[in-house]
């Protein structure tokens, strides 16, 4: 299969980045300076965090980092359980998503970084640095335990190992880690920036696309550039580039909205069971719980009366907080749904009483 547009037109150098150019220049300075700190790259999804990280790596080590291979690494936990985790690595860096290991993320973080940091770069030629880079994605999903472990590892192996952490939200990251990293904020591109990039890509692809459609796409994606490009390509594949066409909405979003409709339609035990199945399906297909929660709340809040909104949100934040304490997301989501149903039903009854 040919490359998706997203991958095909991904900038490879700091100097070819399309937006946040000032920041790109500064990152270049940082790399040249020689004393490279740990980085914490944060920003919403689709804003280009990973792209920037790859550019930085290329700037640091040259084209060698583009020879990627993926590998499964097995880590043994103290209780002798084997955890397999997927990594992407080159000769100079390794990329892992430690939250894939669930509650064993601490072990993965400690073990892997230790292993990597202890193996020194063998031949130090002129272009090479004396450190390797470990890219950790989704650090905001790390447990507090793992974060403390990370901080310790960071200090211990700072001589021959640099970390680049990647996160969407800074809130769950402990201050000790934040203060040890140089924060790099990657805000979402503006609508104009997205439009420019799309039209550039379309030109290269020899696709004539009406300006109004470009604008429509850019506005619909909430600053998620990757999604904008995907939508654009999807439109192209469907061979429908009419300016007034409907844009494809992701099925999971529609699915969540329907779930919300089920909840408000009738409050019954059968419906709770249906909703549970829906939530399971969403979780199983990998939609992150925070997105499910956010979409669900938005859909529900827009459907219900202003009077009960504060209470609904109060409950939502309580259950979401609990959800983040553990791994059984479904329990708390369902508790919220049930709570909402009861609030909603009671409110309806109150309204009827007044008549």
């Amino acid at each position, binding site marked *: 299969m040919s490359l998706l547009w997203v991958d095909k037109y991904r900038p490879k150098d700091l100097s070819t980045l399309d937006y946040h150019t*000032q*920041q790109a220049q*500064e*990152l270049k*300075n*940082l790399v*040249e*300076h*020689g*004393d490279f*700190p740990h980085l914490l790259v*944060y*920003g*919403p999804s689709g*804003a280009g965090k990973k792209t920037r990280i790859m550019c930085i790596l290329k700037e640091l080590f040259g084209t060698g980092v583009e020879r990627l291979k993926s590998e499964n690494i097995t880590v043994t936990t103290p209780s002798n359980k084997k955890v397999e985790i997927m990594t992407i690595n080159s000769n100079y860096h390794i990329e892992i998503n430690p939250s894939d290991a669930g509650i064993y993320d601490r072990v993965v973080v400690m073990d892997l970084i230790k292993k990597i940091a202890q193996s020194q770069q063998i031949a130090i030629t002129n272009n090479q640095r004396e450190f390797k880079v470990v890219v950790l994605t989704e650090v*905001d*999903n790390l447990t507090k335990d793992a974060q403390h472990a990370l*901080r*310790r590892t960071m*200090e*211990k192996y700072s001589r021959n190992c640099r970390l680049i952490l990647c996160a*969407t*939200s*800074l*809130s*769950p990251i402990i201050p000790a880690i*934040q*203060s040890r990293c*140089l*924060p*790099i*904020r*990657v*805000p*979402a591109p503006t609508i104009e920036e997205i439009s420019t990039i799309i039209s550039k890509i379309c030109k290269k692809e020899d696709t004539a696309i009406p300006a109004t459609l470009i604008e429509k796409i850019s506005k619909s994606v*909430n*600053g998620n550039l990757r999604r904008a490009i995907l939508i654009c390509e999807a439109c192209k594949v469907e061979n429908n580039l009419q300016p007034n066409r409907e844009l494809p909405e992701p099925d999971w979003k529609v699915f969540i909205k329907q779930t919300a409709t089920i909840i408000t339609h009738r409050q019954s035990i059968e419906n709770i069971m249906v909703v549970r199945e829906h939530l399971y399906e969403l979780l199983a297909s990998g939609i992150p719980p*925070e997105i499910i*929660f*956010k979409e669900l*709340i*938005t859909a529900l*809040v*827009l459907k219900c009366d*202003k009077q009960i*909104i*504060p*209470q609904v*949100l*109060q409950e*939502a*934040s*309580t259950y*979401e*907080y609990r*959800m*983040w*304490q553990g791994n059984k997301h479904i329990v708390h989501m369902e508790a919220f749904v049930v709570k909402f149903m*009861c609030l909603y039903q*009671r409110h309806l009854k109150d309204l009827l009483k007044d008549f």
Partner: protein
Amino acid sequence: MQAFLKMGKLGEPSASPSTSGAPKKKTKNLPWVEKYRPKTVEDVVEQREAVSVLQQCILGADLPNLLFYGPPGTGKTSTILAAARQLFGDLYKERILELNASDERGIQVIREKIKTFSQLTANSSRADGKLCPALKIVILDEADAMTHAAQAALRRTMEKETKTTRFCLLCNYVSRIIEPLTSRCTKFRFKPLNQSFVLERLQEICQVEDVLINDDILNVLVKESGGDMRRAITALQSCANLKGKGSHITLENVYEVLTVVPSKWVNSFWDLCKKPSDIKEIIQFIDDLEQQAYPIQKVYEHLNDFLMDSENIDDRLKSEIGEKLAESSFRSSCGRGDFTNLLDFAVHTQEILTEPLERRRMQALENAKFTTILGLS
């Protein structure tokens, strides 16, 4: 860390003993916080009590066990390191044992490592012939992160080794140190630094390191780092690294490095909370805010300032909003629920400010009928 020294020697750093020995390249890579640590106790400013006691000790008085506490970046580590350097001169490396929270510090380590260290005998003269106390110093950084069991284990060790070893405990919150330990130490409180000292210090560093920065921007940097010298110096170095030689540091750089949220965002959010705005509007705003990726914790901090400063909200309501703010902020820090928590806060603030208290009380009572039997939250 915090180096509040007025360094007379700053002009010629190569002449200072600690840097001259190391190879040139290494000096370059040394973090500035380390490079500009005060070299003598006299260089430490502001913490007068501690300094005067330590000066006495250097002149020959007996050194007590010490406990330094105070906010981060106020010079606790710097003070004790400088004192040790003056006391022991070149021997200083062998005479101190520094353990910080990143080392394993269970009971085992307290017992083994400190014991072995304190059992080494110390000579009472220095290599250069000067006299020095026949003591060793154990520095326990971030002592409040130690478990209570480990602290208890330390208690005994402290007494037993009193002939040869002195302990210096550094912590942020003295309340987390167990009573028996604090009573064995002379306590010194380290006050947050006056911003003018920090500013002065940064200006000196800028001069030596050829950093180009406007005084206004430097002022902002000092203000945003809130009296934390370490943070200010680290931020300055990061800015300088980002900019490279020869270009001016901009306000944006400072904001980025210190992850400051521009006040216009917080302002409009606060406005949104105060008036009965539509829920759609709030959702849209929070979406936009999330796209900017500002750290939400900072937003909460700002909101707190706004809340405290707003004069047209009476104190009872303020306390209610403040409680909600605390809850939202805490929950945000525990997971990835920024969106829900911000929305929750906004809607509640609205409700508190627009609905009369009596009605809300009634509603709460009504709901209490249905809330859980266990009253859990």
